[in-house]
């Protein structure tokens, strides 16, 4: 049962981070938005949505914490989680939409001297996609925080409930999902889709900065053309990043708990059998036993984590070596 909940968390993490990245593409938030800002200043009037509220990590920490707090309050009032979590996410998204409007209108208005108009159809047309993508991300993060808070209760071993309160867990994963969405997903939007009329296979030179691709396959490009493109590679890879992180973190903890003896001990203590009674009495009379089991559990978890990290380092060496061999030295001008 514990493994099933863990896998559900991993799946939710994958969905959350993918939608977080696509939302940042849909609203043009974070690092690549520097080019949208710059575009008007270098004479490139555009129909991009300019939503630089803050870095993705603080903004998602805000929405997820609001969602977590609202859900937590509703749960304290014994509202069903299936209702409390979506209501929390809705509250978070309400704030998100307000910030989106003020950020876009405020920033674009400040570019009046560069003759950048505020296109009202761009403003109205992007709010709903921003809200829906953001809602998916916030909903999944709040659900993850709820499951982790109650993991022990849900899987029948109360000791496994996470010690942090639901809003803090929502905050932690909000920060993390934003940091990952910003550091991974931005690349596909900023280095590829934003400069698609430049040669593929090279870093975007400083002279290109601000000169973004303004025309789509058909008509003038807006953020909607960008999200559908990034959904094919950048979004899923970003989702995979967060999913794999949660998978490795959970897996190494669980392996440590199983091999270190923590899980069998908890299972025994939770049972009403003779073995359970013996386990409860033994841990009370000899506190050194659970302490030793706890230490061993932590040590195994650490060693497994270090081993995974070393594999990741080797993976990076392989990718870099492959790219150097496959692409070769730079041949352009």
């Amino acid at each position, binding site marked *: 049962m514990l493994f099933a909940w863990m896998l559900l968390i991993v799946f939710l993490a994958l969905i959350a981070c993918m939608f977080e990245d696509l939302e940042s593409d849909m609203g043009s938030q974070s*690092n*690549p938005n520097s080019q949208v800002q710059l575009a008007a200043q270098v004479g490139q009037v555009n129909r991009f949505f300019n939503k630089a509220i803050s*870095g*993705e*990590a603080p903004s998602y920490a805000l929405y997820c914490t609001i969602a977590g707090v609202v859900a937590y309050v509703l749960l304290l009032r014994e509202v069903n989680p299936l209702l409390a979590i979506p209501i929390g996410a809705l509250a978070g998204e309400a704030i998100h939409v307000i910030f989106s409007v003020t950020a876009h209108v405020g920033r674009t208005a400040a570019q009046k001297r560069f003759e950048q108009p505020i296109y009202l159809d761009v403003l109205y047309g992007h709010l709903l996609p921003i809200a829906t993508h953001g809602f998916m991300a916030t909903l999944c993060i709040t659900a993850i925080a709820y499951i982790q808070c109650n993991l022990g209760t849900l899987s029948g071993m109360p*000791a496994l409930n*996470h*010690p942090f309160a639901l809003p803090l*867990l929502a905050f*932690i994963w909000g920060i*993390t999902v934003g*940091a*990952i969405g*910003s*550091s*991974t997903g*931005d*690349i*596909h939007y900023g*280095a*590829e889709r*934003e400069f698609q009329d430049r040669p*593929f*296979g*090279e*870093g*975007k*030179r*400083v002279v290109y900065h601000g000169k973004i691709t303004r025309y789509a396959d058909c008509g003038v490009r807006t953020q909607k053309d960008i999200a559908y493109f990034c959904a094919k*590679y950048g979004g899923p*890879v*970003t989702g995979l990043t967060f999913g*794999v*992180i949660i998978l*490795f*973190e959970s897996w*190494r*903890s669980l392996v440590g708990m199983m091999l270190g003896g*923590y899980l069998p001990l908890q299972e025994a203590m939770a049972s009403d059998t003779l073995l359970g009674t013996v386990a409860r009495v033994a841990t009370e009379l000899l506190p050194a036993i659970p302490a030793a089991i*706890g*230490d061993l*559990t*932590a*040590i195994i*978890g*650490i060693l497994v*984590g270090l081993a995974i*990290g070393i594999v*990741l*380092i080797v993976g*990076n*060496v392989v*990718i*870099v070596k492959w*790219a*150097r061999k496959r*692409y070769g030295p*730079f041949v*352009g*001008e």
Partner: protein
Amino acid sequence: MDPILLIVVCVLAGGVLASLGVHLLPVGGAPAAMATATGVATGTVMLMLGAAMCGLFTAASVATYTSNILLVSLSGAVGSWLMMGVTMLLANLLYVFGVGVVPVSGRVDVDPITRESQKEYKTPQCDGHGVPNVSYISGMMGALLGGFGGALMYFALLEYANFEPTMAGVAAMGIFVANAIIAAYNIGGTIEGFQDPKFKRLPKALLTCGIISLLSGVLVSVVANMGGLIG
């Protein structure tokens, strides 16, 4: 040892380690998102905080079944190390397959670890792109140190200052952010890792972060004392 002294020492050490960790991360900021600079395409504080929070989550879980400070701190360190490792690896996948560039350093002509030449693979008018091996290993070391520092502070607040777990997490994060921001100011935007000339600015940041962490440690001790949590 006196709990007040323990709190101050742990917070001081945690803050200094956080600052050191931030300096080791390969942070490319906005230029990295356009493959114009080497490193991870986000801000220094956000990246370190994301990694440290990931570590803090695991450290908090581990602290429920062990009271060994080293094991809790190492668990946090490994949590951050995994977060950074996966993030940098998959960012490189995007650089290689999504943008079609070779990960290279813009600050050194030869990778100091793998001895691979960098210059001829770099796009002109760019300050490198992607996460080369030297930056990757530097980032992993930074995450390990930063995560260790964050978890160390959390454990001190939880066990020695007797804060409630959620409160200890919030307070540890607050002190961590202060140190990360000081380090980010010292870096001034982008850094590639220990091979970057900006890394030489480290002593100034360590001194400043040491003073800030010392003040934070004293403040935590005062709060815990006045709140009747210790003594």
